[in-house]
Structures are given as structure tokens and as C-alpha cells.
């Protein structure tokens, strides 16, 4: 029983961390219509910078500044934002598919970089050993896992609440306006390229935060964690849940991660040994099928984006309404 409970907690912790990344992608794709093909790069840089800033001293390698954990986590998120700024500056003005290709390229380049820059990233073996916040104070491993689950759920709730407010605010309307009709938004005096760059950066910061939490939880990060499949999984979660809907994003994370874990468990338990070496391959086909079938059959996801109707509370005051539009 305790085994099942710990496994459930492990599952929920990972789901909550991934849900944060999916919410970040939902801001970029669901609300602003920005295609990010390299989610894993922003997730990964958040994880690596967090562990380099906050981690222990490693012989002959860079890092080990032992910065307090919350600051290290924010440092990782900030690094993800900085990377998004560099990439976005070159691409958010251009054709949309360029951004898809460029971000995909960032992820490939990032994986090659951390695999080789041993001095910085520990190379292929990664960075192991990280003192998790309050781990010694709590002592009991089971209790610590409960604590960590609460921690990531709080983080998820904060991100969720923050993004929901952002999306409901005039800024959220501006994002959707640009997504739907860039020319019209331009005609209203908005700068679509700048707003899109901002949304891209905010989304990337959230992904970096998720990466930092992920590396904290495992106290380990390696190039293996930056495999392109993570990008596909996070995208599948958003599409299945419903892009443009934060509730859908969280639900999609549960459904897709649940399917992934269950299929892995099923293959490992019931498949004959000669099939088991192909377990990963079969799971990848599953993710591909989820993506394609969801797009064909239910393109708007389980919880579709809701029509946003802006209620005009200031009717009778045309001056104020105009002011609102200009925000």
C-alpha cells in the first residue's frame, strides 16, 4: 500500500511539473499562436542553470555556487527567458514556420552543447547530486516526497492563477487579437512582433521554471532528459487537453502522461522479452498517433477554448471604452 502511495505521489509530482511546462506552451501557442518546436530547450536550460547555480562543487567543473534554492530556480527560469529573447528576436517578426524550425534547432543545438561542454554541464554523464530544499530538516523520505508534491502543486497553482489572470486581462485580449488578425491589431496601433516576443519569453520562463523543478526533484540532470520526445509529449498534452484553455492544458497533462506511464508499465509487465527492447519505439508511435488522431478527430481538444466575450462595463462612457482599447 505504501508502495502504491509513493508511486502515486511520484506520478503526481511529475505530472504537476509537466503541467507547468504545458501551461507555458499554452500561453505561447494557445493564446499567442506562437509555434515553439523546442520546448525541451527552455525546459533544459532552466534545469541546468538551476543545478549549476545551486548545486554542490564538482571537481574541475564550473558551477557549485550553492546559491539558495529559490534564487537558483529563478536563475534557471531567467536563463530560459534570455534564450527565448535571443531566438525570438531573430524569428518572431518572420514567417510562423521559421519560428517552428528555429526553436526545433535550438533544442538540437542545446542537446549537442550539453553533451559536449563537459566543463559546464558534466557532458553525457550529466550533473548528479543536489541538496533539495529542506531535505535534511524533514529527514523522512516519504514525508519529504509529500512535502515536495505540495511544493510543486503550489507552484502549479501559482502559475495557473497568474496565467489565468494574464489571459483574462487586456493583455490576454491583445494576444488573441494578434493571433486572430495581425493586420487588424496593427491597424489599432499595436506592435505584434513585440507583443509576440513578450509572450514567447514569458512562456519560456515558465518552461524554465518547470525544468528547474524537474532537476530539483531528481537531483540530477543529463542530456538524456533533453531528448526531443519531451517536446512532443508536452505538445501532445496541450493538443489533447485543448489549446487556449488552461484547464484543458492541465487535464491533457494528466491524460497523456497517464497513457505514457500506463503503456510503459503494460509493455514492461506483459510484453514478451524480445518485444520489450522495442517498448520505447512503441511508446513513441503511441505519442505520434495521439498527436495525429487528436488533430484529425478533436482538433480543439477535450476542453476547447472558450469564446471570450468581453462584457462592456463602461457603456455610456465612450471615452473610457476607447481608453481601454488602447491599453
Amino acid at each position: 500500500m505504501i508502495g502504491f502511495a509513493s508511486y502515486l505521489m511520484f506520478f503526481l509530482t511529475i505530472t504537476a511539473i509537466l503541467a507547468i511546462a504545458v501551461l507555458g506552451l499554452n500561453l505561447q501557442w494557445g493564446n499567442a499562436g506562437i509555434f515553439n518546436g523546442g520546448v525541451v530547450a527552455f525546459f533544459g536550460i532552466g534545469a541546468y542553470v538551476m543545478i549549476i547555480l545551486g548545486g554542490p562543487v564538482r571537481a574541475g567543473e564550473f558551477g557549485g555556487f550553492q546559491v539558495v534554492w529559490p534564487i537558483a530556480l529563478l536563475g534557471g527560469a531567467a536563463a530560459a527567458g534570455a534564450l527565448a529573447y535571443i531566438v525570438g528576436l531573430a524569428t518572431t517578426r518572420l514567417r510562423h514556420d521559421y519560428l517552428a524550425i528555429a526553436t526545433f534547432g535550438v533544442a538540437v543545438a542545446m542537446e549537442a552543447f550539453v553533451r559536449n561542454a563537459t566543463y559546464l554541464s558534466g557532458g553525457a554523464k550529466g550533473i548528479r547530486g543536489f541538496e533539495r530544499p529542506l531535505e535534511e530538516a524533514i529527514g523522512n523520505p516519504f514525508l519529504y516526497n509529500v512535502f515536495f508534491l505540495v511544493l510543486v502543486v503550489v507552484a502549479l497553482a501559482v502559475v495557473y492563477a497568474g496565467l489565468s489572470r494574464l489571459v483574462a486581462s487586456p493583455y490576454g485580449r491583445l494576444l488573441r487579437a494578434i493571433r486572430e488578425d495581425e493586420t487588424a491589431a496593427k491597424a489599432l496601433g499595436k506592435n505584434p512582433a513585440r507583443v509576440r516576443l513578450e509572450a514567447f519569453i514569458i512562456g519560456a520562463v515558465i518552461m524554465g521554471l518547470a525544468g528547474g523543478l524537474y532537476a530539483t526533484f531528481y537531483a540530477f540532470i543529463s542530456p538524456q532528459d533533453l531528448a526531443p520526445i519531451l517536446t512532443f509529449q508536452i505538445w501532445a498534452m496541450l493538443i489533447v487537453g485543448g489549446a487556449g484553455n488552461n484547464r484543458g492544458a492541465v487535464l491533457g497533462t494528466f491524460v497523456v502522461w497517464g497513457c505514457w506511464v500506463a503503456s510503459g508499465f503494460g509493455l514492461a509487465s506483459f510484453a514478451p522479452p524480445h518485444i520489450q527492447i522495442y517498448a520505447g519505439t512503441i511508446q513513441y508511435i503511441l505519442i505520434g498517433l495521439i498527436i495525429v488522431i487528436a488533430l484529425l478527430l478533436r482538433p480543439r481538444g477535450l476542453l476547447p477554448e472558450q469564446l471570450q466575450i468581453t462584457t462592456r462595463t463602461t457603456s455610456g462612457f465612450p471615452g473610457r471604452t476607447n481608453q481601454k482599447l488602447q491599453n
Partner: protein
Amino acid sequence: MIQALFDGILVGSVLSLGAIGLTLVMHILRFANFSHAELLSVGAYCALTFDAILSAVAPPLQTLIGPFSMSFALALATIVSVGITGLTAVLVDRLVFKRLRATAGPLTLVFASFGVALIMRNVIALVFGLHSQRYSDDISFAVMISADPLLLIKPDQVIILCIAVVAMAALHLLLNRTTLGFALRAVAENPTLAQVNGISMPSMVRLTWMIGGGLAAVAGVLYGLDNQLSPVMGRDLVLSLFAAAIVGGLGSVSGAVLGGFIVGLASSFAILLLPAGYKPAIPFLVILATLYLRPNGLFGEAR
């Protein structure tokens, strides 16, 4: 230096063939097809299968052509593979992309192509195994063309270059000398006007996929001759293909050819400067440099 130049041209010729199909699809169907590189794998493995079948049915075909490790069986298998890979591309379009074109925006198509790539790559891995394979177990020895500067060339590499050039020349003739080619170029320039003139859009879309898939199959076989076949070869090549298409300018066939050679040369010269492990990052740097310096590529038009 000379060696890097030659290697770059060799890799470039394979990339060019792949990038032509990619750029055609991007121009005519207006979406970045992340599954295009998987067509190279489909072509390469298809040729492997028919090579085995033909060799079993007619053993004399196993004779190697001259000093090359390409047998008559493989040459015939490649021709079969061109057709089958083209049909595969048409089939995937019919099953997935065509349905989405009707309802969804171009970025949804990009995303669907992510999913298609995952499926194609892993189905190949499931059917042919995760290990890498070779067309021929005979070791092909490199011939020293000159000692100073050192230049080693395998006979296979000569035939790879020749086949690539022939394929490009054939495409050039098709586009510039045949009615079909004129129709395709008309659709690329202005789809609406082309249709007013009685060009059938669905058949042009099929032709685009046939050409793209066919060239990808040739590229896949050539890549397999010089390297090894592996289910992940598409994943390893996809970024280089995009880089070639972007450098050349999306939609330009001659741009894709030139872009392929530029990316090939950049990758092979980069090894002189950087540790080999960073090689996967080179196409990305080429893309970034192009977007900063010349956002529409060398031959692309602003859109």
C-alpha cells in the same frame, strides 16, 4: 582543407536532393514538413528491402557495378524505391495533411508533421530493428588521390555525386521542358491564376509529393551508401534539410540545391574548428545566421 571541401560537396549533394522536395512542399502547400526527412529513411529502407528481394530472385544481379559497392540489384531497387517513396508521400498526404488542409491553419499542419515523423521513424525501427545496417558488407577502400594536400576518395563517393547531379538535372529538365513542369511552376507562382487556367490543383499536389518523395528516396539511398542506414537517420538530417531550404530561400529549387551545398560545406569545415560532438548544432547556426543577415534566403522572395 581539400578533404573538407570534397566531403562538404558530397554531403551537400545528398542534402540538396532532400531539400528540393522540402522546399517544393513548403512553397506549394505552405507548411514546414517536419516529416520530410523520414521520407529519406523510407526510401533507403525500401531500397534495402528490394535489393534483398532482387538478389534472392536473380542472383546474377548481385554483381557489383565496376569498383563501386552498388550492385545492379541495388540500382534497380533504388528505382523501385523512388516510386514507392513518392506514393508513400502521396498516401500520407491523403491520410493526414489533406484532411487538415481543408480545416486547419498551416501551423496545425506543421504540428501534425511532427506526429507523422514520430510514427514513420518508429514504425521503421519496429520493422527493421534499432540497429544500423549497410547495403554491402564489402569494405569499400578509399583511394588516395593526392598525398599533399591529402585527399582520400572512396569510389562510392564518385557515384554518389554522379547520381545526385543526374537527379538534379532530370528535375531541371522536368520543370523547364515539360508541360507538367510548367504547370507546377505556375501553381507555385500563383495558385489561383493557375487554377483559372485549368490546372488541376489536386494533381499538382500529388506531383509535388511524388517529386519530393522520389528525390528523398534517392537522397536516402545515397546517404546509406556513404554512411549506414539507421531508423534515426531522418531525425539526424531534418535540421540540415531545413537549413538548406532556408539558406536557399523557401520555394526556390535552385536555392535549395545551393543551400544544400552551403550547409554541407559549413558542417564539414566546422569540424576543423569545433569538436565533432557539436556538429548537430551547425545547421542551427546556419539558420540563425541566415535569418539575421538575409531573412528571405539567397533566392527567396519576401512574403
